[in-house]
């Protein structure tokens, strides 16, 4: 069972909140599992092409795109279909952090309808991810993407599984580089094991991951979103059975109740009005 520290949210600006030491990560077991999954993913998604002498030439991915032998290892790897039991704990802890996030920004509560199940993102040495926001689908006028479920994302959540050691600290699973910067608010997050970050999924939380200069960086990502189902657009949340499922979309059917429980427990002598459930538009009616 994971040992829980009290969550200590720190607002870094622009809606990005850092919870340091939020969860204890079973690194040895977990990273070994993720290493295996990463190699499996590469084998399933890339084919190495050899020359007549049996020397490797380049790789081809499932879409037919050619990557150099080094280049394909510089692409971040998304690991889905997660089966390790730690991910259930991870989801639960992110959910607890979300309740604290709502306390900081209560008007967001009714913009959170469902969540996208988590996946792991792994960056090996040389990998990076350019500047982007998590609700962007690369729209251009005249070229509407068919699957635009990312436009529904409201809050992005991530959990760091290992630490950047650029500060000179020593740890077995450390890496160099790999900071996450959020330039519109001059935020630079140095990943530390067990930290959780919640931030806007829109352009205000636009971010980039700097190149990993040594080692491998592992993080877990999920999104909280809003909007009615539209399967043709890739939006099709279902009701959870209480078990952990990697991926998919899941209704947050108890979020309002859980937030109210949380807030009434925290303020037993009276909850400040601004923290209670918002029905702003309903105020127009009686």
């Amino acid at each position, binding site marked *: 069972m994971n040992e829980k520290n009290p969550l200590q949210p720190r607002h870094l*600006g*622009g*809606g990005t909140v850092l919870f340091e030491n939020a969860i204890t990560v079973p690194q040895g077991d977990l990273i070994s599992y993720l290493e295996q999954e990463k190699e499996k993913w590469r084998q399933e998604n890339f084919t190495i092409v050899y020359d007549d002498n049996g020397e490797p030439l380049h790789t081809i991915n499932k879409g037919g795109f050619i990557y150099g032998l080094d280049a394909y290892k510089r692409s971040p790897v998304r690991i889905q279909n997660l089966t390790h039991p730690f991910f259930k704990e991870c989801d639960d802890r992110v959910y607890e952090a979300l309740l604290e996030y709502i306390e*900081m*920004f209560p*008007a*967001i509560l*009714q*913009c959170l*309808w469902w969540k996208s199940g988590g996946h792991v993102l792994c960056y090996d040495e040389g990998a990076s991810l350019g*500047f*982007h*926001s998590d*609700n*962007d689908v*690369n*729209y251009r*006028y005249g070229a*509407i993407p068919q699957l*635009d479920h990312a*436009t*529904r994302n*409201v809050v992005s959540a991530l959990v760091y599984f290992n630490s950047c050691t650029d500060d000179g600290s020593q740890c077995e699973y450390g890496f160099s580089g790999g900071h996450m910067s959020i330039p*519109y608010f001059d935020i630079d997050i140095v990943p530390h094991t067990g930290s959780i970050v919640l931030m806007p999924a*829109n*352009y*205000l939380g*636009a971010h980039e991951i700097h190149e990993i200069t040594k080692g491998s960086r592992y993080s877990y990502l999920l999104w909280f979103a*809003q*909007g*009615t189902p539209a399967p043709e657009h890739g939006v099709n949340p279902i009701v959870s059975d209480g078990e952990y499922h990697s991926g998919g979309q899941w*209704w*947050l*059917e*108890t*979020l*309002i109740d859980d937030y109210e429980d949380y807030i009434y427990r925290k303020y037993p002598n009276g909850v400040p009005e*601004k923290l209670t459930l*918002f*029905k*702003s*538009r*309903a*105020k*127009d*009616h*009686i």
Partner: protein
Amino acid sequence: MKFNGIEPEELGGGVILFKNAFTVDWGSTRDLFEEFVASERESMYTEGINPETGEPCYINRSGYIFRKDGVDMMPRRAANTHQDKRPEVIELLNFLESARDNCLLGYMTIHPLAYKNIWWKVKGHIVSYSTQKGGLFLGTHSDSSVDYLYGIDHPKEQLPTKNTLSVVMYVNDCVGIDQVGEDAFSGGEHVFDYLGITYSDVPFKLYCLTRSETSYWRNSLQLPWLVFTWVTKP
């Protein structure tokens, strides 16, 4: 009517202020805005008596009864302005829309990635707060929320969930209470609670672009203003 230029000022959290961005003739603008909001309120409600309580009430077009003081506290809005074909109305609204579009480009010099979330726009509407004519304040809210609760029917109108950027264009000025006249008001601060921003120091016409505004208005004497919104895909 004159567009004065763009000098964006970052207030924090994605809220950008363009002071003195445009100038309009206050007298004619006020007359048109008053006409629009009064007409829309009149078309929405009929005054009557609540048969259960015997108190004065409003009855809307669907026959629902609303408490009179509740409706009177609501800001007056006019969304039907763009159907008006009078040349002076078209000229004013086209000018305002054009001023807004210019400021949007200024906004994107500060938050360039916003352009990828902006697919289409909704034309503006008028909102009026007046101590004499109704509309004292608007509570804290987010422009992208439809007050969803799990288990209720999904709101039929989900347009706000697509909102990316909100725009407010102020057409008259906030002043000290002793300076209030026909062209100015007191109170009516625009508060972004989570960002620690309270905006009231309005020297003249100004223009503000926001992502997801929260606002709280109080003690407003007379304040017509416009809201324009950009949104993403349905």
